[in-house]
């Protein structure tokens, strides 16, 4: 009976996990089924234009007026003329269009027909039955533009930019910055607690550090925003203090308890006889620490570091509050950055359910899942080596 209950609950747990992962990937992968143009909209050109297909990046360059001649896209040397529905007023009067826009489709049709270099973006419902232009074929979101694209601007018109590189890089910069700060500090604290501090001090420090792990992340974010961000702004004389560095510092502090407790445990597992043997050979306390204790517990220390990174990679709230959230490829830790979890948290509420943006956020979730999975597998691997006694 009890065995049955236990089995049932573990089955439910595993099923839930599988279900979540399945749901995440089903929604996430669907982004590659989508076109990067808003549903119900179309992009049209003159019928004599030889261009048939454009990628979202090419569309973006046209609308940013970086591409100004069709010849740059392999067609005739016409200059590109941008047309939005609002521009109709330059061609027709309100009377001609009609009070209920009943003539709008035919107006649009003749405008597109009369200007050879035109590119127009408007809702599909205004497409005339005998439309005299050509609808552009838009490529679906490709893996290349998703992972290679350098811009994350999922609500851009007419074509969304779904490059995740700035977000992945932002996540990695902030996380590695955090670990770079937290690892030396955490190791020093772990060494102090396991090898130097006497039992009385340890009994005070240990609960304090565990308390640090229990503080909600918003509080860390708030602390970062009020204390760390202004300090960074002042020290580096920056226009804004919300930077990757601020995120790294806050995350570093948040990763400290994990790093300290796990590596301290590993160090305390060093057999006393081994330390005594080292000391008995005339090694000093410090020599014993870095030649015996640290090598002996190195797999535990690596596990601590990796788990610390894992904590940093997945953290959302605190990062969202202090990193400035600019989705651009970072060049230095002193720039605003945006991480994957922060992006999901900030944007999911605004993304229409089932739309391109929504699916793109799920795809981000998949990336995050894969990153943390790799981290966890690495921990598994490292600690299984430890259990194997491979010292």
């Amino acid at each position: 009976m009890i065995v049955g209950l236990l089995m049932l609950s573990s089955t439910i747990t595993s099923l839930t996990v599988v279900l979540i992962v399945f749901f995440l990937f089903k929604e996430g992968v669907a982004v590659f089924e989508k076109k990067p143009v808003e549903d119900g909209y179309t992009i049209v050109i003159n019928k004599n234009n030889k261009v048939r297909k454009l990628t979202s990046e090419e569309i973006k360059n046209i609308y940013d007026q970086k591409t100004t001649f069709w010849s740059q896209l392999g067609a005739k040397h016409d200059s590109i003329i941008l047309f939005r529905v609002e521009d109709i007023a330059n061609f027709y009067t309100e009377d001609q269009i009609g009070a209920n826009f009943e003539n709008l489709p035919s107006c649009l049709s003749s405008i597109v027909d009369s200007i050879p270099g035109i590119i127009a973006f408007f809702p599909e419902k205004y497409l005339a039955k005998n439309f005299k232009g050509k609808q552009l074929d838009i490529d679906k979101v490709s893996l290349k533009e998703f992972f290679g694209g350098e811009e994350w601007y999922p609500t851009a018109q007419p074509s969304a930019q779904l490059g995740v590189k700035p977000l992945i890089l932002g996540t990695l910069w902030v996380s590695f910055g955090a670990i770079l700060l937290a690892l030396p500090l955490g190791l020093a604290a772990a060494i102090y607690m396991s090898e130097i501090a006497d039992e009385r001090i340890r009994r005070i420090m240990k609960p304090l550090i565990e308390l640090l792990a229990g503080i909600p992340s918003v509080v860390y974010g708030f602390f970062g925003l009020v204390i760390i961000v202004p300090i960074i702004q002042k020290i580096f004389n920056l226009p804004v203090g919300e930077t990757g560095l601020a995120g790294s510092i806050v995350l570093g502090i948040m990763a400290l308890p994990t790093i300290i407790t796990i590596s301290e445990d590993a160090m305390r597992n060093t057999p006393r006889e081994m330390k005594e043997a080292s000391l008995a050979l005339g090694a000093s306390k410090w020599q014993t620490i870095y030649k015996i204790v640290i090598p002996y517990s190195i797999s535990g220390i690596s596990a601590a570091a990796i788990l610390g990174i894992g904590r940093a990679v997945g953290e959302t709230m605190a990062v969202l509050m202090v990193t400035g959230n600019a989705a651009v490829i970072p060049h230095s830790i002193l720039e605003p950055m945006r991480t994957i979890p922060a992006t999901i948290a900030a944007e999911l509420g605004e993304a229409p359910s089932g739309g391109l943006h929504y699916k793109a956020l799920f795809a981000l979730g998949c990336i995050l899942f894969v990153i943390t999975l790799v981290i966890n597998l690495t921990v598994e691997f490292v600690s299984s080596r430890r259990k194997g006694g491979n010292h």
Partner: protein
Amino acid sequence: MYKLESKHVDFFYGASQALKDINISIEENTVTALIGPSGCGKSTYLRLFNRMNDLISNTTIKGEVLIDGLDVYAKGVNVDSLRKKTGMVFQKPNPFPKTIFENVAYGLRVNGITDEKLIQERVESSIKKVVLWDEVKDKLKKSAFELSGGQQQRLCIARALAIQPSVILMDEPTSALDPISTAKIEELVYELKSKYTIVIVTHNMQQAARVSDKTAFFYLGELIEFNITRELFTNPMVERTQNYITGRFG
């Protein structure tokens, strides 16, 4: 002059007294066995000579502990260099998580020796002294954990010999070993005697009888009898010693 001496030594863990007025004098190049029931203070006494008890907080020592006539607990004694004069072998083989070679080289490296040729020679001669060379010479780069328990213990002795101590302190070095490995270690102790002064804790009275020149019998923190081994085992002067060696208690 005696090699090792203790004069009126009392030792306390916190408030509890583990050694009471211990007076022992040990001559150079002899083997001294410390016997007695478990908890009687043998390890505590042994660890006085290389100040290993310093690692335990809240301990006090009274009296004098001398090596070559010098008080090891005197002010200004450098504990690290004191420990270089003594090699210690522990109850369980405790090689480092390093290669066989690096285990033996460890004591040299931490003492600042960087001449690789000298290290090489010292490692080889130390391993030869414990009659392990033929067994490990082809796998010096392998982990010390790949050796058998008996081999590991001999490696630990080699490790202690490499720093060229004059005293070797052994705390029940064979208690975790099989009879064949034990015999090898005992033979080794006998051979090492010509160059070193050895103190060996053992709970095995046959072992004490086989390897030692003199034996000290401890009981409840007191030294009950200290005599030439053969005398102590054949003709004990104190009744408690008699009872212990004939197996009536302990």
